[in-house]
């Protein structure tokens, strides 16, 4: 009897505290998501009258659309190579910037600058100049190959995507900052104990630091992955999706379908496909994460 009673008593406090989020979720997320799903079932010229066509947009995407296939390959390449590169680079830079050094604050700011620059026009111009076939990157590479190489970075369908991956790696700032915050939170006393045991710095890193911040590593991995799937700016500014659509990422494709060509229904369907793909990858990461992520709760 008494057991029953306590069970029935609901604690309203958590719900009350979640209220703002719940309102926002319904208005700013659920509503547009539902609407966009309906759009995806329509032939919807952005300024014309929508016409219900069922799954035709999806059928077109998977059976006929060559651009979608090219675009998907480009996106997957970018994500699968770019994500680990960025996470690893960001982690090691954060590890180094966590040392107690005089002036480390200055370096932290300097190292974040590429990310502040973001999609600035100076970056896009400099990048095309850097990777020009006669540019400095090739000059440096030619030292190792007796002046033989001339990778035409921006024009060669096999290499153009790497210019964007390198750009992404260069703008590691936000990911690094999040790692740095995590490292700052690792208690000094843990290290002190380890030092007494005579553990080396590298061993400390893998046996103490990494396990403690696994939730943050997970967060960064998922976040970098999701952002990479949604990459738009760099391709829009630097390669324009070329050459031959090899850097035409899905988000760029969606944008152009919707706001250049005005095919809003088709763009919505593409969005749902992209969402599904990101979802699958995220589920895989979450499911496997149970094996190595260590939570305090």
């Amino acid at each position: 009897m008494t057991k029953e009673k306590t069970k029935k008593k609901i604690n309203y406090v958590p719900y009350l505290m979640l209220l703002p989020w719940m309102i926002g979720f319904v208005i700013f997320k659920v509503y547009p998501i539902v609407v966009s799903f309906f759009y995806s079932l329509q032939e919807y010229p952005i300024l014309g009258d929508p016409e219900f066509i069922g799954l035709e947009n999806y059928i077109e995407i998977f059976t006929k659309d060559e651009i979608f296939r090219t675009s998907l390959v480009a996106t997957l390449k970018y994500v699968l190579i770019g994500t680990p590169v960025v996470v690893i680079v960001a982690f090691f830079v954060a590890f180094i910037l966590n040392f107690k050094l005089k002036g480390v604050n200055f370096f932290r700011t300097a190292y974040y600058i590429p990310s502040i620059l973001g999609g600035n026009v100076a970056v896009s111009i400099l990048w095309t100049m850097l990777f020009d076939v006669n540019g400095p990157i090739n000059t440096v590479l030619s030292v190792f190959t007796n002046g033989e190489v001339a990778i035409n970075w921006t024009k060669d369908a096999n290499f153009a995507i790497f210019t964007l991956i390198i750009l992404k790696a260069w703008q590691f700032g936000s990911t690094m900052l999040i790692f740095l915050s995590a490292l700052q939170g690792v208690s000094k006393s843990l290290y002190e104990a380890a030092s007494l045991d005579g553990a080396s710095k590298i061993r400390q890193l893998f046996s103490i630091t990494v396990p403690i911040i696994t939730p943050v590593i997970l967060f960064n991995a998922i976040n970098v992955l999701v952002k990479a799937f949604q990459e738009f700016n760099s391709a829009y500014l630097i390669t324009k999706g070329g050459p031959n659509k090899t850097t035409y990422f899905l988000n760029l494709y969606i944008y152009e379908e919707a706001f250049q060509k005005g095919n809003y229904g088709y763009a919505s369907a593409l969005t749902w496909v992209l969402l599904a793909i990101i979802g699958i990858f995220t589920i895989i990461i979450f499911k496997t994460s149970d094996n190595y992520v260590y939570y305090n709760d």
Partner: protein
Amino acid sequence: MKRRVIAGLLVSVMVLGAALTGCGSKKEEVKETGADEEVTISFSWWGSDDRHTAMQEVVKLYEAENPNVTVEVVYGAWDGWQTKMLTQLSGKTEADVMQVNYNWVHSFGKGSNVFYDLNELSDYLELSNWDSDYLKAMEVDGEQAAVPHGMNGRVQVVNSTIFDEAGIEYPTTYDEMIAAAAVIGAGNTATGADNKYVSINVGKECTDLYIAQMLYNATGKVMQSDGKVNYSEKDVAAVFDQYLALEDAGALPKFEQDDPIQNESNPVWTSGRAGAVYEWAGTLNKYTGSYKGGGHDDELVVKPYITEDGTEPTVYVKPNLGYAVSKNSKYPDVAADFVNFMFTNEEAVKTLGTSLGISSNKVTNEIQEAEGMITGKVAEAYELLNSYDQTIMDPYFEDENVRGTRYIVIEGLRSGKYNSQDAAAKYIADQQEELDKLYD
């Protein structure tokens, strides 16, 4: 904080309510707006800083003449403007008077007019000031969707120094182009940083138009009419081969040799290593201004487009931009009057100068000429264009779906992904498929 949250809650409830009701707009007869009635209309455009200043001056002039009218202005840069326009039009929040691009007029509504039919406003907007051909270019489904500001076509801006130094004449045929390349580009390398070319095409749009013009010259037929591509695979393949031959000879840069800076700051052009550039007459000042850092106009001349046999080409022209009135405007008569003012008021025309190019409106054009506003290379270019037979570009020539397929094929052709036969087949089939969607 608490008050904010409550306000937020209220807003969200309102949002939900509003979302369920939706809204529609009905078209009514044009009612004359009284001279004493307080009226506010809005006016949107994109452009550069010069244009923003000039347009705002014109707005002030109009407000001074019509004290009961307030004109709110909305402006920005070209980049992203189409997105903004589409969003506004879909939300019925567009300005009363809009500067519009040629391809928007036809493509946004996929063949039906999304703007006010200006024929209904002819009491306020003097349509007879335009050639009927020019008006027709902006007619959609029997309605006058917009009025054009001016006409525009591409010309070759030639750097005569490079030809003088090489001791040769500017070529008039493709064979001469190839011969000239042998002299000018003698020292060219596969990827060379200091290569020289007879002519360059900067960007996808430029290359597309260059090839379109070659096709027009070769066949005497326009790209498409009434939703049908007019060329055979043989026609197209032959022109593609010709284009590749020009590239192979070094007359034009190859795909791998194109400089990645694809605007007027293209180093090949600014450093004087290109014999010519193919550009819109209306905006070629960009290229005269960037050539060797500016101030070298004496080295530049406007030359005819090169053809197979040196005969005069028939060239494509199009309205560079136009003005449309919103279907949702409360005061379409005032909006139309404002457009009329921009074209016919002497002060207004003077203020705008040639920041929008040379006008095809007769009144505007007279004032522009009388005031001697048309000068320099732009004047030369228009003179040249007017000496040719002109064809107004098909409404769907620049439709993003249609020309998008051409861009893909041309890039594939130039980069060696397709041979000229396959490219030609794809060029026709893919365009046709997109045109069919527009005409079904």
